[in-house]
């Protein structure tokens, strides 16, 4: 038990990333507010980045750092466009509840 607590290895970082990813998945499934869903997506992207950086450290390969940088840039673009869509949806419907966005349901 104390070995698990005191000896920090790669497994700790990977499990932490997996837990963060699962919390993000949980938020995406359970919550109905589009903003919370976007935040959960950001959490999942961060968890994936942490896994990448852990593997980079594990194998002494720096290209995962480049990959993470690109993931961060893509996440920023995704947040900007996603929030713009949320604002546009709110302007038309006065709420951002994804369960009520049923205009495309036939």
């Amino acid at each position, binding site marked *: 038990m104390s070995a698990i607590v*005191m000896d920090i290895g*790669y497994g700790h970082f990977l499990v932490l990333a997996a837990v963060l990813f699962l919390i993000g*998945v949980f*938020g995406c499934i359970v919550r109905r507010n589009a903003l919370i869903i976007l935040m959960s997506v950001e959490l999942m992207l961060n968890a994936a980045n942490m896994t990448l950086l852990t593997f980079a*450290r*594990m194998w002494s390969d720096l290209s995962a750092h480049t990959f993470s940088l690109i993931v*961060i840039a893509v996440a920023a673009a995704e947040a900007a466009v996603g929030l713009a869509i949320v604002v546009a949806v709110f302007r038309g419907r006065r709420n951002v509840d994804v369960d009520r966005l049923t205009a495309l349901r036939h």
Partner: protein
Amino acid sequence: MKQLAIAIAIILSCAAPRLASAQVAPPEEPTAPTAHVPCDVEAKIAGLFAGYTIDSCEQTLRTNEVLTDPATHEPVLNVTTHKPEHDPTHDQYNVRTHSAAGTRLEIQIEYTGKVFHTTKLLVHSDRIESQGPGMAILFWVFAMAAIGGALFVVTRKNLIAAVMGMVGSFLGIAAIYMMLYAHFLAVVQMLVYAGAIMVLFVFVIMILNRPEDEPVAPSGRAGQVLGGLSILYLVGRLAFILIHVKAPAAAMLAPAATADGHDWGTVKAVGTDLFTGGLFPFEAISILLLVAVVGAIAVARPLVEKAEKDNKDAHTDLGGHA
């Protein structure tokens, strides 16, 4: 790939003598493959020997790692020095590592084969040791911050509280990046996420300014069972994958410098990799960001005047908008 090759060579150089000693003694000495890295203790040794000139510095393993081969106890750092006023061929002082543990390094200074001075050096004392109680405490503190913030995001009804939880989570994640020696990525994480994206979210929440009616989806029994089963499957799948991850032997040792001689994870090292191997993705990202900016403005732009205009000349303009 060069870094990977160096890492593999270091692992092999650690493992090869141990493997050889386990078997029957071979007739010739097995030559362990070594990776020559720049001497990063050279500057410290030069400070130790004011008035000496360093002729050569050979180092086969990283200083943050073991400086004495664990199998043979042979020093892997050899420095030859001489006093500049003497003839270098006649007056040589050899600096050898006597013992090394983590960042603490004990070196012996020999003069014509006789040890006359032993001293201790602290190599790379600005870095925390990659193992030990300090690392453990920091890891658990920041991991709890990351997980607690993430739980805040998915449980809070108040959106501002959720965003603040997200910022706490991102700060914890940035600290975890630091522990993984990704200094540059940690700073970028703080700038982009805890700075820019947080401000974006807060702005949108202020614009919407509407409390959430029901935070959790009442999706019915079938939906709940399906969601629970899918999350359980994901947990099992992740656990299965994580159990089978195999770390290399030189696991938590401090990383070596890159092939270009830069420190691991710094702006220089990441920038060199980004602008050589990742140049095309970098350029593509700039186009993506431009498209995202234009798209965000186009989507979020108020359409009131346009709608009024459309209503006004709906009869004449129908064909153009179809």
